[in-house]
């Protein structure tokens, strides 16, 4: 069972790797934030799986903290950092 949890955790980590491509190619800042957002949720799932696999209940608190604070980055982005449209001059990859 623990092997399954770890295998799924690896699978989710590979998902994060795939999602990184979206951060790299953009094109808009919103797209990049969206990918970062997905990584937050994926990280939570990985931490929960590891908590079960490694039998460390304290890890669930970490998942809780990640979930609670993940929205801060989005709010800062929307209020202060979002120059939102894709930039034509920006390098593609």
């Amino acid at each position: 069972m623990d092997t399954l949890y770890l295998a799924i955790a690896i699978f989710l980590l590979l998902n994060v790797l795939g999602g990184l491509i979206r951060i790299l190619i953009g094109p808009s800042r919103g797209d990049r934030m969206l990918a970062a957002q997905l990584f937050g949720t994926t990280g939570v799932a990985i931490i929960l799986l590891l908590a079960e696999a490694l039998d460390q209940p304290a890890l669930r608190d970490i998942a809780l903290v990640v979930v609670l604070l993940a929205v801060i980055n989005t709010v800062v982005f929307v209020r202060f950092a979002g120059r939102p449209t894709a930039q034509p001059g920006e390098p593609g990859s």
Partner: protein
Amino acid sequence: MSALGILTAVLIIVGAAFYLAGTIGLLRFPDLHSRIHALTKADNLGLGFIVLGLLLQADSVSVALKLLLVWLLALAAAATSGYLIANHALESTSRERPDDV
């Protein structure tokens, strides 16, 4: 492996599949808004199924409650973030801004 174990395994694998769908959606969909659409559905359901699977293995009520809380908060946070980013993108494209290149 017990029946409960098999059910957990199935639920977790389904959850992982939703994550895969979300990532593919993130990479393949043509514009920001459809990506948000794909993403919020996929990661909420993905985390939901994984939490459901782990719930069956929870050995105490407090662990189960914590897992549920994580999922509910993730649901709310993802929905709000998706809304904020979509709204932000919408406003900035509909309004001509002299400072945008």
